[in-house]
């Protein structure tokens, strides 16, 4: 056999060997970033009352006139997401029974903890999703505009009398990491890739969402109410803030 194919084969094998060594050790070169939300040592439970985790994102017990109740993490979620995912989940209810469910999902070393909300919504029977980017004013620790994605969705429900009715859902979500805030998956993934390649830091992203149902036609009023709630809730557990904005206040 001529020498050239042997030389090329050896060179290619050396390339593969170098790649293998790099991949086998790359995690030692990576640093896990700091989360953009608080994390506390506290137990979190599944629907059967079993401990599902030893850490959680501490959502506040009370926001404005809303009281809260801890929600268990569903088995499907626990089985689906990586084991080092940290959760926070509460149902908030106002005096007029208006309720908002808030979820916080914080990734560990695996970005697949952060998933698209469409999966969960569709699994719950909500379809016809339309979304647009919005901002919500948060006033503490300084005024800033929180970028969020507002998603409107619908679901047909069966009534007791056998008929059907349609309900609307308003779903608001955003992503937060150390020093980063965004409402879009694309930006989150790009920033994560950028920091991994240039700084060797794996950004530790959290996905925060708020969901409320309403009658068709009341979506905007529901969103306004959720915005006030989110603006009041966020400072209690979110460390990362946005650039300060100047508010126009009445003298």
């Amino acid at each position, binding site marked *: 056999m001529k020498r050239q194919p042997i030389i090329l084969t050896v060179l290619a094998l050396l390339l593969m060997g170098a*790649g293998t060594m790099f991949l086998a050790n790359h995690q030692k070169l990576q640093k896990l970033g700091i989360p953009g939300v608080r994390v506390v040592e506290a137990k979190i439970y599944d629907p059967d009352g079993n401990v599902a985790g030893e850490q959680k994102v501490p959502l506040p017990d009370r926001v404005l006139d809303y009281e809260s109740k801890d929600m268990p993490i569903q088995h499907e979620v626990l089985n689906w997401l990586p084991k080092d995912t940290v959760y926070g989940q509460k149902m908030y209810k106002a005096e007029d029974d208006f309720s908002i469910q808030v979820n916080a999902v914080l990734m560990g070393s695996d970005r697949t903890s952060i998933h698209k909300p469409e999966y969960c919504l569709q699994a719950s029977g909500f379809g*016809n999703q339309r979304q647009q980017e919005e901002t919500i004013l948060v006033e503490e620790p300084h005024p800033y505009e929180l970028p969020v994605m507002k998603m409107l969705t619908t679901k047909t429900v069966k009534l007791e009398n056998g008929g059907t009715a349609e309900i609307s859902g308003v779903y608001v979500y955003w992503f937060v990491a150390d020093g980063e805030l965004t409402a879009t998956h694309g930006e989150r993934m790009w920033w994560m890739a950028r920091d991994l390649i240039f700084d060797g830091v794996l950004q530790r992203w959290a996905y925060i969402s708020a969901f409320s149902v309403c009658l068709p036609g009341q979506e905007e009023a529901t969103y306004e109410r959720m915005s006030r709630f989110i603006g009041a809730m966020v400072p209690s557990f979110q460390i990362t803030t946005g650039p300060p904005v100047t508010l126009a206040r009445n003298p």
Partner: protein
Amino acid sequence: MPTTLSQSHRPDASPGFREEFAELWRSLPHKGPFFVLLAGWVLLFHFLGNSTLGYVESSSLFQWLDYVYSQSTDDDHGYFIPLVVLGLMWWKRHRLIAVAKRPWWPALLLVAFSLALHLAGFMVQQTRVSVVGFFLGIYGLMGLLWGYRWMANTFFPFFLFAFCVPLATLSEPITFPLRLLVTKITGFISETGLGIAVVCDGTRIYDPAGSFQYEVAAACSGIRSLTATFALALIFAFVLFGTWWKRIVIIASAFPLAVAGNVFRLSMIILAAEIWGQSAGTYVHDNSWLSLLPYLPALGGLFLLSHWMREKDPGEEPRQEPGNLMAGAQQKA
């Protein structure tokens, strides 16, 4: 005494699959080094191919692909693409046998680039990037030992491996506008063509009386038929046509044909619902055979277009059989 010709020398005997495969196999030089490199490449991607362990707890790129394909019908064509590529390479076997093959060192740069793609995809936990690196690397390994002429002649169908990259979960920028477009066109056809009054609200279609209501969900966006039609259009373009502008026309026709196919299916659902009620429309939607309706206009359109633009003898040159050569020589005489 007449001479008895052996099978291989009889003018009317075509070589069988075994003989042709053996001829193709013999024409490939440096098989040992190639398969050593291929084995090493596959093992690399099996043991260090995937860094996202959330959905499937395996470092194997192939297990990740199997999981992703099994989760979405919009991606499960990935299982069949390797068979299609091998089949088309077999279709091109005469050309591949004839092409000169010798090592070509610049292909090592492609192998290095492919490896770099995989390292980047692994580090940033984007396994799709590693999938691209995997197939590109195999292309590079072939070029390394068989040369640039081999690479040029296998570009088609090798590029069809692009369809092995699962994109269903990233296709929202395409599927949502598709859903809106299909809803609008279906509403227009229902009103003006079928005389059925419907209301289109975003991706929902319903009749004003409330007797039926449907949503053009993501699964009905037509992305599946678009992918299939696009893949077929690519194959038609390269198998049936040698002229580049005709290839472009065939490939570009995939989008309108796929939309037409989806509109056709939705219109049949609306028609059934109008005549027999919501349950009839749901039956048309859910029935496995009737769910193939989008492919009728799409495939029919591709075949028709190909027939109109057909070229004389565009593809693989026919193998020169000994009998043909002798007949040709006799005619000339």
